[in-house]
């Protein structure tokens, strides 16, 4: 079997995690290319449907990265995002994808090293969990179509 390369979607707040990712790049820090970054104006802007759609289209893991507590540019969007993530983890268990595949992380714009570390940790965690059942089925369907 080919080596499993997880697809991970990271919803990153413009004011912290996205800038932290930029800083990781400026610092020449390596982090896995599995992590696909989507910049959002605030982690609180990430809706449940964005996360569910990511999994429906084959993501193996998703994380929402927002500002440290008390630092949200919009007051408490990061805490709202955390509540939503906790709620959605239960939904993902119900769906059969598994709530472990979804995480909330907090960081500041200056935490480039943390961003790179978190990206590595998430990639390793999802690699261990294996492909999401949706991903497996989508690949199977694509193979059947091709043959």
């Amino acid at each position, binding site marked *: 079997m080919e080596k499993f390369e997880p697809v991970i979607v990271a919803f990153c707040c413009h004011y912290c995690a996205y800038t932290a990712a930029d800083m990781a790049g400026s610092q020449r820090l390596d982090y896995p290319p599995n992590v696909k970054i989507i910049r959002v104006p605030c982690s609180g802007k990430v809706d*449940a*449907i964005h996360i569910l759609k990511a999994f*429906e289209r084959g993501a193996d893991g998703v994380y929402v990265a927002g500002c440290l507590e008390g630092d949200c540019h919009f007051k408490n969007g990061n805490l709202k995002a955390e509540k939503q993530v906790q709620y959605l983890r239960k939904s993902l268990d*119900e*769906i*059969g994808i598994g709530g472990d595949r979804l995480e909330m992380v907090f960081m500041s714009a200056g935490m480039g090293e943390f961003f790179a570390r978190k990206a590595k940790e998430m990639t390793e965690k999802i690699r261990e969990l294996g492909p999401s059942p949706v991903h497996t*089925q*989508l690949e199977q369907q694509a193979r059947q179509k091709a043959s």
Partner: protein
Amino acid sequence: MITAERKPLKEIMDYIQPFNRILLVGCNECVTVCSAGGRKEVGLLSSALQSAFLSAGKSIEIKEHTLERQCDPEYVEEIVGMMDGVDAVVSMACGCGVQEMARRYKNKPVFPAVNTKFMGASERQGVWAERCQGCGNCLLGITGGICPIARCSKQLMNGPCGGSTNGKCEISKEVDCAWQLIWDRLKMLGQEDRYLDIIPAKDWRTAGGGGPRKIVREDLAG
């Protein structure tokens, strides 16, 4: 509003397991306000069902549509053109909407995706509480605007029972004693004498005890 909560995903999946083409219909009224079955919840349920069925190796086609109201035939009629291409309908409306869909589209199985709960009001974001049981003979004018039928666990009509402690009901410290609320409000309004009026035994026929209820407005009904 009529409040509702989404059913467990497994129950909805069991309903539609034998079918391949589903029409998932939301309602823009009460269930939208209580975040159970509006356009947003239709999208979320559709995505959850797609992923859950796909994980189990089954492909399913789900069309999404949200009607202005599902309890009015005029609106339910709007989706007649969509019916040919579907095997079953899943309604995210309250029980009234589900039944209206089933009445109009008799040859399609219609399944509920929510459990209809009660007539309630929003206490704060994300919290809804029962306020009315539709008894058909409103008492709020003499009970300080607080309903002893919907909010007293024993539906007492003439003051609290012995289980009222520090303003709370004996069933739970989270539940206010309705009669404490009524007394406090009457006092605030300077209408304590109202409390002494005896409310006679209630005629429950208007509350459904006389069978299914109906309102006919002769000036409007054809």
